[in-house]
């Protein structure tokens, strides 16, 4: 049995906006095992970034409400992060759990030398001298394979290219050897060749430090190569989760299938019409009572719009929330391997 390092229970996040309260995350439960890579996949606005920021305690407190009807919990090694004080969170953030962001230009401080930014996180979490921290920073830059690390240490972010900045940010995040790394779209802003370099680097460091990684992304190609498990989010809920193979070859939720078939494969014929989802995700200020995907779903039934489906478990890892898997549902017309197990 794998050891769970993080467990999120019944997490809901709402934001108070001028237009009303937006229910960005609406009750998600998930876990993360030691050393594994969990990918959270979904379109913009589905709540994947909000979920990861909630774990880090990075949401603006004044406008945010975290919790659920039965109370939310984010258990890190058994301790609830939501009950921690700001000081306690500061001690965890950056040392036990770290995060890297999509845009390395806006996430690095433009007025600080790269070396000092890496040393900063070391100094906050360890009682060592600045000189030693800088020495460690140099080691980190070498670890993320930045050439001429000693010179680069004294440079500013603007002197770095996009790929190098992302490397520098990884160095900042990993300086204290965290147990969990949350990577929020780490390669979206980068070119494919650089993307491959960065994903390789994250993978190597993950093994070296035995970290668990939460990879937040919309790029299914990246997910296929690195993730152990995947969870698919839609409109603030997790609609399906499973191992990489289960999601790619035996997905049971229509949304997952739609997402997978809307990317062109290198082998599909050119100019063939791509599967495309009609419509757009719902407005989360007034979230629907039933399944949020129902209006866009080609298999939508009357019950889908009225009542949220229960979660059906197919295997140790795979679960899906969809009415199609109810014993009474009409399975005619569904793709062959979509319904399984629970008949």
């Amino acid at each position, binding site marked *: 049995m794998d050891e769970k390092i993080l467990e999120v229970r019944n997490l809901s996040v709402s934001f108070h906006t001028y237009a009303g309260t937006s229910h960005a995350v609406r009750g998600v439960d998930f876990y993360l095992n030691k050393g594994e890579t969990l990918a959270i996949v979904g379109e913009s606005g589905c709540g994947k970034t909000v979920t990861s920021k909630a774990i880090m305690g990075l949401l603006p407190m004044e406008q945010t409400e975290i919790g659920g009807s039965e109370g939310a919990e984010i258990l890190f090694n058994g301790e609830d992060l939501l009950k921690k004080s700001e000081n306690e969170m500061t001690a965890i953030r950056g040392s036990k759990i770290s995060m890297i962001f999509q845009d390395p230009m806006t996430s690095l401080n433009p007025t600080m030398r790269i070396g000092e930014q890496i040393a900063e996180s070391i100094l906050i979490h360890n009682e060592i001298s600045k000189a030693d921290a800088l020495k460690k920073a140099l080691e980190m830059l070498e670890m993320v394979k930045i050439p001429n690390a000693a010179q680069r240490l004294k440079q500013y972010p603007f002197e770095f290219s996009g790929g*190098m900045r992302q490397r520098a940010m990884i160095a900042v995040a990993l300086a204290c050897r965290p147990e969990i790394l949350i990577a929020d779209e780490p390669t979206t802003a980068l070119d494919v060749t650089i993307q491959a370099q960065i994903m390789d680097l994250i993978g190597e460091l993950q093994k070296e430090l035995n970290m668990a990684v939460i990879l937040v992304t919309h790029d299914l190609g*990246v997910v*296929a190569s690195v993730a152990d498990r995947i969870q698919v989010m839609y409109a603030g809920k997790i609609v399906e989760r499973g191992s990489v193979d289960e999601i790619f070859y035996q997905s049971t939720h229509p949304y997952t299938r739609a997402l997978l078939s*809307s990317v062109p*494969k290198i082998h599909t014929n050119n100019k063939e*019409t*791509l599967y495309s*989802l009609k419509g757009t995700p719902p407005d989360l200020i007034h979230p629907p009572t039933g399944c949020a995907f129902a209006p866009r779903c080609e298999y939508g039934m009357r019950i889908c719009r009225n009542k949220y489906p229960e979660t059906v478990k197919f295997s140790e890892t795979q679960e899906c929330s969809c009415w199609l898997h109810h014993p009474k549902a009409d399975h005619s017309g569904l793709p062959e391997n979509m319904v399984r197990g629970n008949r």
Partner: protein
Amino acid sequence: MAEKQTLIEVRDLKKYFKVGKKQILKAVDGVNFKIYKGETLGLVGESGCGKTTCGKTVMGLYPATGGQVFFDGVDIHGLNKKEKKEFTRRAQIIFQDPYSSLNPRMTVADIIGEGIDIHGLYKGEERKEKILELLDLVGLNKEHSLRFPHEFSGGQRQRIGIARALAIEPEFIVCDEPISALDVSIQAQVVNLLIELQEKKNLTYLFIAHDLSMVKHISDRVGVMYLGNMVEFATSDVLYDRPLHPYTKALMSSIPIPDPKEEKQKRRIPLEGEIPSPINPKPGCRFAARCKYATEACTHETPGLREVEPEHFVACHRVEEIGE
């Protein structure tokens, strides 16, 4: 297509930018290609390779430093004001960022109608009808016509941008990363729309993007750019199945495949380092510094595009020796 008619011919196109004393950024440095009527030419490459500058220079949005762009046989960089206006009626561009390319103070109807007014194509009732027709064509409805851009999602805005480009019934559209800012499911919608419109109206596209699998999907032929040079040029199937240039090989092999089994079997050709600066580039092959096959000769002499197989052009001195 039995007989291919050339719509655009780009000859030795150069676009340099002065970025300081004796500092010249060679964004596009001697590029040649043709675009046939009714086809889609894809242009791929990493950021900074000059693909967008190339597209904008082809459109005449940048004056060319050297070379010519022939549109239906006429060099567009030598046009007078009146001829230029006529050219813009026949060629349009769709921009990458659907947020900054629409005027926030204009309604959708005015954004789409602006081109119609400038060229005096339709007036009054007819103009209104045309706008509604265009909205319908790109999958928006008529209630949308009086709204402002901020009321739309990214995908919808990109549709407005497409409707604007189509409003004056152009023959040629430069699509500059039209889907990069959009979500996967919305990307599919926009790409399907572009393909459908091409078939309906026999449009010609220059499709610029860094998403290699989308480019393959939409293009008939694809050119790969590296630091202002075209390094390989072929039909899209050939280019993706049998790339010959070492850079193209590395690029193709780093496309992530959305299939875990294939992804595990795939052999990736790693590419060390990053794209060098295009400011005062060194002579010789631009890729030589990162190429594992590079020899002495590669650093002296810039390789030109050669037809290695029918319709397959490669700019590499050693392509025959490297093989597949």
